[in-house]
Every structure is written in structure tokens, then in C-alpha cells.
């Protein structure tokens, strides 16, 4: 717990006691990891997978609570079981079948809600699971989020070239000596980790939105993969700022407010690029 020691030593303890500071930090960390992961998932058409894992995560929460472990570990276990099974059945060339994903997604959600319903009412806040509860971020949540994000960012940096090459063409990447199947499995595991930690902030139903919407805005005028990641992060920041402030001022739920802000930014960007293009013509 070096982190805790550092925080104490620098006198950040009091500061971190403020729930708003904690939630802003958690939001910033999420944006930092959602941008590159979101881009990769959009490029590889895996956005739907995060949705599936998110929905099935409810099952993980239920299992975690039943077995009396921290729910996030239940979520991670369920997500890992799903990605390993998908990796086994998924052939090299075909994209993940939407039907398979939809079945897993909704069965996970339905089963999870039944499980959660069996528990005593006060143990679970179903709303927080489904839509997130950024403002209730604890120091433990923050530490987990930070560690996972650092691990994911290091993996991304180390394998970035392979990830991009596989996104462009699996066939060419394989022929040039990149082990596409291993890269794919690593990517799946990283998505499972991402979903497990983002769940706290965004809620299981809204994770995919945070991975897809800022990325789509960024794609409208990016010229390179890295530029798209950087611009996605900016849009993520904008959505976070809009979400937290409207949540604070109007008492909106934070997760949904972030998603609505992200979509508003996308619409504004679309309008501006339209006007800009018609002026050029």
C-alpha cells in the first residue's frame, strides 16, 4: 500500500476525503483509459463485447455478494470466463457473432437480477450497479481503478503497434509474424479488466457508451490512430465535466449525465463539421 503511504505523507488525506475530489479523480482516470481502449474496440468492432460483459457483470455482482467477496472480483471472474470461452469458439476470421453476444448479455443480466433479488434488500443498490455511482467513489475504489488503469496503459504502450496492425488487417499482421490469436486474447482480457473497474463509475449499462461516443466524435476529423485516441480523451474530458457539473447542480445521476453530455458533444461536432464542409464546397 505504497500509494496510501504517499497519500498520507503528502497530506492528501484530507483532500481525498472530499467525495467530489475523489469522484473527479476517478472520472479522470476512467477517461484516460477509456480513450485508447475505446478506439481499439471501435476499430476491431468489439464495442458490443464491452456491452455484453457489462450486462453479464450483474451476474458477477450477485455472485460476489452471495460469496461475500468484493463485487468487483465477482464481475472480473464472470467477465474472464466469458472472454476465455469466446476466445475458444471464435474462429480466426469471423467477427464475434452478435447473436451469441446478445444471448450471453441478456442471460447474464437476467440471471444477475434474480441473484441480486435473492439477497436482503439493503445489501445491494441495484441502481448504482446499473447506472454507476461516481459520487460514491471510495478510496478503495480509487486505488483499484488507478492500479488497473496503470497496468492497462502499460500493456497498451508495450503492444500498441501489434494492436494497431491487427486492427488494420488480421491476415496481413499474422503473415508478418504477429501472433494474432495471442494479441486477440490479451485484448479480450484487457476488456474484461476495463469493464470490471469502469462498472463503478459508469454502471454496467453505460460502459459501452463511454467507450464508443467520444471515439465516434474523434473519428470525424482525426488523421491518424494516435490522434484519434488523443481527441477521444478530450471529448471524454468534456463529457466528464458536463456530467459531473450537471449532476452536482441539477442532481442528475452522474453516469447518465456523462453519457448525455458525450452525445451532445457528438451532435455539436457533427453540426460543425457539416457547416465547415459545406463552406469548403
Amino acid at each position, binding site marked *: 500500500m505504497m500509494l496510501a503511504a504517499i497519500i498520507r505523507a503528502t497530506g492528501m488525506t484530507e483532500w481525498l476525503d472530499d467525495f467530489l475530489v475523489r469522484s473527479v479523480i476517478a472520472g479522470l482516470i476512467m477517461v484516460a483509459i477509456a480513450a485508447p481502449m475505446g478506439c481499439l474496440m*471501435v*476499430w476491431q*468492432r468489439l464495442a458490443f463485447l464491452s456491452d455484453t460483459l457489462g450486462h453479464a457483470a450483474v451476474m458477477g455482482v450477485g455472485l460476489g455478494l452471495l460469496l461475500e467477496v468484493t463485487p468487483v472480483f465477482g464481475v472480473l471472474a464472470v467477465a474472464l470466463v466469458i472472454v476465455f470461452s469466446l476466445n475458444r469458439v471464435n474462429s*480466426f476470421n469471423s467477427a464475434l457473432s452478435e447473436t451469441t453476444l446478445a444471448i450471453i448479455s441478456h442471460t447474464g443480466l437476467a440471471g444477475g437480477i434474480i441473484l441480486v433479488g435473492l439477497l436482503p434488500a439493503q445489501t445491494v443498490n441495484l441502481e448504482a450497479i446499473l447506472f454507476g455511482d461516481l459520487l460514491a467513489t471510495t478510496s478503495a475504489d480509487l486505488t483499484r481503478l488507478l492500479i488497473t488503469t496503470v497496468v492497462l496503459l502499460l500493456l497498451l504502450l508495450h503492444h500498441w*503497434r501489434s494492436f*494497431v*496492425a491487427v*486492427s*488494420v*488487417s488480421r*491476415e*496481413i*499482421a*499474422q*503473415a*508478418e*509474424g*504477429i501472433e494474432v490469436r495471442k494479441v486477440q486474447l490479451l485484448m479480450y482480457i484487457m476488456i474484461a479488466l476495463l469493464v470490471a473497474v469502469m462498472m463503478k463509475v459508469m454502471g454496467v449499462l453505460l460502459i459501452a457508451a463511454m467507450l464508443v461516443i467520444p471515439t465516434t466524435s474523434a*473519428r470525424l476529423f*482525426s*488523421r*491518424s*490512430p494516435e*490522434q*484519434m485516441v488523443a481527441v477521444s480523451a478530450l471529448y471524454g474530458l468534456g463529457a466528464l465535466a458536463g456530467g459531473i457539473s450537471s449532476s452536482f447542480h441539477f442532481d442528475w445521476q452522474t453516469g447518465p449525465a456523462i453519457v448525455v453530455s458525450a452525445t451532445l458533444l457528438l451532435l455539436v461536432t457533427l453540426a460543425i463539421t457539416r457547416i465547415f464542409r459545406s463552406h469548403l464546397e
Partner: protein
Amino acid sequence: MQAELLLRASNLSYAAAKRVILDRISFELRRAQITTIIGPNGAGKSTLTNIVTGLINNFDGEIERAPGLRIGYLPQKVYVNTLMPLSVLRLLRLTHNASDREIEHALAQTGVTYLLQRQVRSLSEGELKRVLLARTTLGQPDLIVLDEPTAGVDVSGEIRMYELIGELRTELQCAVLLVSHDLHLVMSKTDQVLCLNQHLCCSGLPESVSQHPEYLALFGQQAADSIAIYAHHHDHEHDVGGDHTGHRHD
């Protein structure tokens, strides 16, 4: 002395959904030699190249690759990821650090230097093929695998492309594995033909393959005759000193 052995395939068999696609195929690829795979639709041509490039690895039989074998690959159907912003320059540098000069040279060979700064998603199918063909030559490949490189290219472009493949072989001293449906056009440049129809019907020099009964059964006398004509041109060129200017064809 034979050229350096780059890849040896022994008794390759492959079945998908209980249907035999390849049946005990053996061949060798050697440096600076062009090997052409011909065969009807569904003969297993693309499956064979996918085994060579490592895309398929659940086959029976054995593949020995020279240590550190570098492969450049042009797939038959190129799926363009329109979701990723990517310039042609970046596409060419995706997995190797080619210098500006190497990239310019590679694009010049396929006649698409002007595409350097364009976004990949804005290219036509033909343009993308040429860019990807240029890409296969970067990073000092030992073997270039081209799966129907001329599909979707007009006839004059086709002849030019086969000439180019011959030039690349000479310049890069790499082996070329080419899938083609028209043997008569690749004839003069090919060192080895593999005539495939699930099993290896026949293999060897183009002239001998074109007279083989199984080849004739698959492609008919007309194809064999047209090859004979090209073979004649081929001999003729050698008579005048192997001057491959490409003008003498017509």
C-alpha cells in the same frame, strides 16, 4: 547448385467441416524463384497460402520455414477498416520502420507515389491493391505471397503487374508464391507451377504442366494452346539475350 531453401511443405492436408480441402500437398519454395498455384475455384488455393502465411495452423503434415523467414502478404480480398483514420504512409510503416526513400521507391514501383498522404479509407480497390503490393516489398521479405493480385485489375494492368512481380523477384532476391487463375499470363516468369485441385494434380516447369493430362482435363486444350504461344515468346526472348523490356510481347 540449387537456390536456398526457404520453405518446405510435406504432406499438407486440411479439412474443414469434414470436407477435404487439401490432400497431402508437398512442395518447396526457394529463393528468387516464382511459384504459381493454379487451379479451379474451390481447389484450395487460398487455403494453401493461408497455411504458408501461418493464418491456418490446424492442418496435418509439416511446414518447415527457414529460421527468421520474413513474409510479405497480399490477401485476395482486402478488407479496409474504415473506422480507423490511417494514411498510406502510416499503413506502410505499420510493422516495419521503412525509411522515406524505401517507401517512395516501393510506391514508385507500383505507380502510386501520389497516394502517399491519402487516407486509406478514401482509396479505390485498385489503388489499395497497388499500395499493399508495394507494402509487401518493404522490410526485406524473403518470401512474398500474393493471392490473386490481379483480381479486379484490367488486362493491361494485369500484364504490367506480372512484369512487376518478375522485377521484384530479381531486385529483392525473394521467393514469390503467386495464386493465379490465368497461367498463360504468368507463364514466362514462373519457375514452378503447382496445379491444385484438392490434391496436387501435377507440378513442375510451366511447359511440362501445360501438357499434363490432368491439367488438360481441368483447363482444356484451349488454355494449353495459349500457353504454348506464350512459351514461344518466352523462348524467343531468351534467344535475343533475355532482354525483358516487355515491348516485344505485341
